[in-house]
């Protein structure tokens, strides 16, 4: 039961309707029976009704406009995490400096990591390195032009020396350059012991530079150094080649190879490229030793047996011929070889002095002492050699020395030569030599070759005047004579017959 005191405490809540339903119901029950409380409630209700007479006044629009302007001007900036930090860094000098260092350091590190070097510094370094290289070339006496010449010469030599093998670029040749005083990586048993030998490219460059400075020089002085590395086993040149110099015919090169084979340097290692011109210091040293009697040969020769060797790609007959050239020659024949034969007719084609034999004798002179030692063995006895000076039969010498035929009338491709005689490319005397070679080897020319031989013997007086017919009549008698000639007991009868045969050869040449 709500009394007046309790209702007075709850009068405002009842007036403003903030009582619960139960309390409101209890108050209403009290109001129904209490006039005083009803009067009090109505008086307060009158005040509320009077207060509701007060209307809400609209504020001036100008105030709202000012407030919106102020709100737009003083509105808080959009909050973020990066912008306040950047603003703080930007406004503080120390932070700004630290940020600059970080940015520069980061960019530099990134450039180094990605590019491996600073791209800004690289051109400067390249220029410095170029200047240094120029200085180095100037210090070594090599000009860029000489270096370019050396590279070109190296490439040319690689092409010429490769033969059947593909030509190696100059850079590769430089990479395979053995360094003095070290073991060759590709041949552990071989010691590069010659400190005076320079790198191949450099040597070539020097030679080329010297040649450029000298201009055209004599063959005897320039040929051994310049032509040796470039001359190797060329493919068969065309007979039209009129170059009969030693550089082109490769005689010196083969002598050098022969000297190398004698000195032990001609035995190439398995991984080594065969006879690349000037690519190896040792080979060049061996050649120089063969020509200049340098004492480096015995050292290299002693080191050679410890290696696994591979023979040069020479034919069996070529090896025999090379061995034959190293044997002592009859003095008479040697003297004849030194000067052109008087029996040669003047009206023939231009004669080439027998430089081959002279060079062979000069180059093999110091090696004969070594070759004479095994000469006593029966297996090393070479077949008799017919040395003639009548090689100047048109295009025959070039074809003979540089081609597949072999430089000394080797028995290889004899039939081809016999057939070529019919076409006028090989002289009858060369053909005779080949025929003798076949006979010594117990071989017989084919029926076609024999037919050609007989045809030639019947056709040409010079050929007939030679011992072809006699050999045909006498059979094996010529071999015994050759053996005596080889032993130096008898001079070849051809020297006597040459004078008589000279006018006949002139006629035969007219027949060509």
């Amino acid at each position, binding site marked *: 039961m709500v009394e007046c005191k309790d209702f007075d405490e709850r009068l405002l809540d009842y007036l403003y309707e903030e009582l619960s339903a139960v309390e409101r119901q209890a108050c209403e029950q009290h109001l129904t029976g209490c006039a005083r409380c009803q009067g009090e409630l109505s*008086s307060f209700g009158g005040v509320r009704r009077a*207060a509701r007479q007060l209307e809400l006044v609209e*504020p001036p629009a100008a105030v709202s406009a000012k407030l919106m302007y102020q709100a737009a001007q003083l509105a808080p900036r959009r909050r973020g995490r990066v912008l306040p930090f950047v603003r703080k860094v930007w406004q503080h000098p120390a932070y700004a400096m630290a940020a600059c260092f970080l940015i520069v350091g980061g960019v530099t590190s990134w450039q180094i990591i990605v590019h491996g070097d600073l791209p800004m510094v690289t051109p400067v370094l390249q220029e410095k390195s170029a200047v240094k290289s120029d200085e180095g070339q100037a210090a070594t006496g090599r000009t860029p032009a000489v270096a370019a010449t050396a590279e070109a010469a190296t490439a040319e030599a690689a092409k010429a020396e490769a033969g059947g093998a593909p030509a190696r670029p100059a850079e590769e040749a430089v990479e395979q350059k053995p360094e003095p005083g070290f073991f060759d990586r590709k041949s552990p048993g071989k010691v590069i012991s010659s400190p005076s030998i320079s790198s191949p490219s450099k040597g070539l460059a020097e030679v080329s530079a010297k040649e450029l400075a000298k201009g055209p020089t004599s063959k005897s002085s320039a040929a051994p150094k310049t032509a040796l590395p470039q001359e190797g086993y060329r493919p068969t040149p065309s007979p039209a080649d009129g170059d009969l110099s030693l550089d082109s015919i490769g005689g010196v090169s083969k002598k050098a190879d022969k000297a190398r084979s004698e000195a032990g340097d001609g035995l190439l290692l398995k991984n080594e490229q065969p006879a690349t011109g000037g690519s190896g210091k040792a080979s060049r040293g061996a050649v120089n030793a063969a020509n200049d009697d340098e004492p480096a040969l015995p050292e290299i020769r002693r080191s050679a047996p410890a290696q696994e060797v591979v023979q040069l790609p020479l034919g069996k007959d070529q090896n025999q011929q090379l061995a034959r050239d190293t044997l002592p020659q009859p003095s008479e024949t040697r003297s004849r070889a030194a000067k052109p034969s008087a029996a040669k007719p003047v009206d023939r084609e231009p004669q080439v002095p027998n430089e081959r034999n002279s060079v062979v004798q000069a180059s093999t002179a110091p090696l004969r002492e070594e070759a004479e030692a095994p000469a006593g063995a029966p297996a090393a006895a070479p077949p008799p050699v017919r040395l003639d000076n009548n090689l100047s039969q048109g295009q025959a010498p070039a074809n003979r020395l540089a081609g597949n035929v072999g430089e000394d009338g080797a028995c290889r491709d004899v039939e081809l030569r016999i057939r070529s005689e019919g076409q006028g490319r090989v002289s009858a005397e060369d053909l005779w030599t080949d025929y003798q070679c076949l006979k010594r080897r117990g071989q017989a020319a084919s029926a076609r070759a024999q037919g050609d031989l007989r045809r030639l013997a019947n056709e040409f007086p010079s050929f007939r005047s030679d011992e072809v017919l006699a050999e045909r009549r006498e059979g094996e008698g010529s071999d015994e004579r050759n053996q005596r000639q080889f032993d130096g007991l008898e001079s070849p009868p051809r020297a006597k017959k040459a004078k008589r045969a000279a006018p006949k050869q002139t006629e035969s040449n007219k027949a060509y």
Partner: protein
Amino acid sequence: MRDDTDEALMLRYRDGEVRAFELLLTRHRRPVYNFILRFVGNPMQAEDLLQETFLRVIKVAENYERQAKFTTWLYTIARNLCVDASRRGKHRKATSLDAPLEEDGESAALVEILPSQGQAVDRQVIDKQAGVRIQQAIDRLVEEQREVFIMRELLDMSFKEIAEVVGCPENTVKSRMRYALEKLRETLEDYRDLAQVAQ
């Protein structure tokens, strides 16, 4: 955005959305202005206080945290400004319309001397007189009673919210409200007679 609460709009304005503040101003400018106007009784001062109230909202918006009701925070600012203004106004001498022209207290008030504008306007005059009397009665209330009465009658705030704004217990607010109602009842006895005549 229009359906957002006052607190959400205030947070948006804190994040830089001026549009949110515009909505808040649209919602609260009228009751706040009337609260200030009834509190201070001077429209010009009320305008200034209204502008100052919302300027304080703008300035402190960056550090606003959702800890209390926005209206409670807003009226607290307005009330403090009004209290400060009323304290400063006590030192100023102002002429009251309903105050007796003479000091004996029996002479007619200024508002009673003003000429009436005919029969057609009797109702308007009575209404206006009723309003003036109510406003005079409110102005005569003590500040504590006045603010509570205005908040309760004009702003329809609960006693609990008024207690939060004023910063006093709820029962104190109710007590102040009761004293305010008793004073207004005494003041409006004449108005009741006028109101009965007008009806």
